[in-house]
């Protein structure tokens, strides 16, 4: 069902109300202010105001060496820190032409995919919370805790890891970590069907999210929407398969896309379901990586003594849980970058909110925002 307002009927509209959602609000995924103009309960315009979490990441990086910038990249998308580090390391390694060992490649993929699991669990749980289902949120967090425990065992941090360094990783897998990860994967796979029973196929949830907030594919590409949001609109584009980085070409996994199973292609349910399916795919990748990883080798072997790339620019992108995360690095031959720009996927996802949310109701705006899975840390940097 669609409540898209017929603009021709505008003659009958009552007075226009301007409402403010945020910046403090139990629903938004960070500090975000939305100025909403409504006609009754139907939205006529949404203007997002961002910048509340702007911490001058790019300006800072111009005074830091390349290694010193790694913890700063963690804090941009704080839910998927490993993937941020990964993207940055790949960019700098491209600039410097470093090759890294097999073992490190496998390790990077394992932690990046585990972080993708954690990030998607949070996205799924908070989306459920936004539409009023309180329990799946806690189930998702219970499982996410296990992942964070594994990370804590690995590098000491639960959320901001500073793990993937330029040329290697910071710590080798401790004794027993691989077995614990296998145990976790065995525990986790049946939980995905639990989420499906509780939330995905729930009639009320489907009514709240199917057909709501459809992003047509041309709009998605023009607005630079990427990642699960783009795949939810039916476009099979995944940087892990289409612009291979690391050793992703050695793994066998599918790329789920939205098919409009419950409503239209590109609605909130599709985006949500793509994330649920990606949980299964990431589990596959982690298993394959753990099986194939060489067990011995020095993880610090390829760390360069001094990171001083030659002058030049590079733009490289990787697949973070939110979409394609791009780093544009301009180097002038010294050991600090002259310009470091992070192109964040949530920034582009939020920019299309006005276009897709017009004609829906306020409850739907919350649902659409939840399905876009934004993190203000990476939007504002």
């Amino acid at each position, binding site marked *: 069902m669609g409540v898209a307002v017929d603009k021709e009927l505008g003659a009958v509209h009552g007075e226009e109300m301007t409402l403010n959602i945020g910046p403090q609000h139990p629903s938004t995924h960070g500090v975000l202010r939305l100025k909403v103009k409504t006609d009754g309960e139907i939205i006529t315009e949404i203007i997002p105001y*961002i*910048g509340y979490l*702007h911490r*001058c990441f*790019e*300006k800072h990086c111009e005074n830091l060496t390349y290694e010193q910038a790694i913890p700063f990249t963690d804090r941009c998308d704080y839910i998927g820190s490993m993937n941020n580090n990964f993207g940055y390391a790949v960019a700098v390694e491209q600039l410097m032409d470093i090759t890294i060992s097999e073992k490190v490649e496998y390790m990077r993929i394992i932690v990046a995919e585990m972080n993708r699991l954690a990030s998607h669990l949070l996205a799924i749980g908070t989306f459920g919370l936004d539409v009023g289902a309180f329990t799946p949120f806690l189930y998702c967090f219970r499982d996410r805790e296990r992942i964070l425990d594994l990370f804590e065992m690995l590098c000491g941090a639960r959320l901001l890891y500073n793990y993937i360094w330029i040329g290697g990783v910071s710590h080798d897998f401790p004794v027993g970590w691989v077995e614990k990860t296998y145990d976790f994967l065995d525990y986790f796979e049946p939980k995905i069907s639990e989420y499906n029973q509780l939330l995905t196929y729930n009639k009320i949830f489907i009514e709240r999210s199917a057909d709501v907030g459809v992003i047509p594919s041309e*709009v998605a*590409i*023009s*607005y*630079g929407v990427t990642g699960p949001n783009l795949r939810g609109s039916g*476009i099979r*584009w995944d940087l892990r398969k*289409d612009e291979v980085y690391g050793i992703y070409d050695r793994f066998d996994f599918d790329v789920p896309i939205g098919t409009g199973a419950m409503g239209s292609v590109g609605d909130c349910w599709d985006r949500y379901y793509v994330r649920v399916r990606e949980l299964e795919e990431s589990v596959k990748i982690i298993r394959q990586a753990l099986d194939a990883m060489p067990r011995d080798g020095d993880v610090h072997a390829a760390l360069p003594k001094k990171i001083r790339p030659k*002058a*030049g*620019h*590079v*733009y490289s*992108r990787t697949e973070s849980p939110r979409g*394609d995360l*791009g780093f*544009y690095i*301009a180097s*002038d031959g010294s050991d600090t970058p*002259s*310009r470091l*720009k992070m*192109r964040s996927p949530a*920034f*582009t996802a939020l*920019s*299309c909110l006005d*276009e897709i949310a017009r004609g829906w109701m306020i409850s739907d705006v919350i649902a659409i925002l939840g399905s876009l899975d934004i993190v203000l840390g990476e939007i*504002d*940097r």
Partner: protein
Amino acid sequence: MNFAGIVEEINTRFGDGFAVVDEEVSLRTVRVSPEQWGELAPFLCEEDSLSFDAMMCITGIDEGEESKNLAVVYNLHSMKHNHKLEVYVPTPRALPKVPSVEQIWRIADWFERETYDMFGIEFEGHRDLRRILLPSDWDGYPLRKDYKFPDTYRGIVVDKMKEGWE
């Protein structure tokens, strides 16, 4: 299509030497002037063989104190043909103006606002050019190399940058 092919297409359409390959920047970069960019952009999007429908990133760059230029770098990608292009558009620091492409690629709306916010580059034809990350009454353009940090903002004293650790 590979990079050489793309450059050839552009030069065929606009005349030889229109797009200058700038290997100092990177192996896939083409340098054009701001006026040329205004003509090139719709061509890149609409031409069937090129079909650059996705704007991956728009970055502002300050070329450094010796050069008198700021620059805007556009990274483009085609979902249809799966090829990429980088366009480097320098513009004078004294009066930085670049034609806006936000009606061609809708993401350029926010990217250009961010570049304006950080560098002060004015995008001509942008329908709503205002600051996006910083408060609307902020003075100055922070990512420029000659940016001086303000002493106070609305009466709040801004801490000086400290040297070394404390």
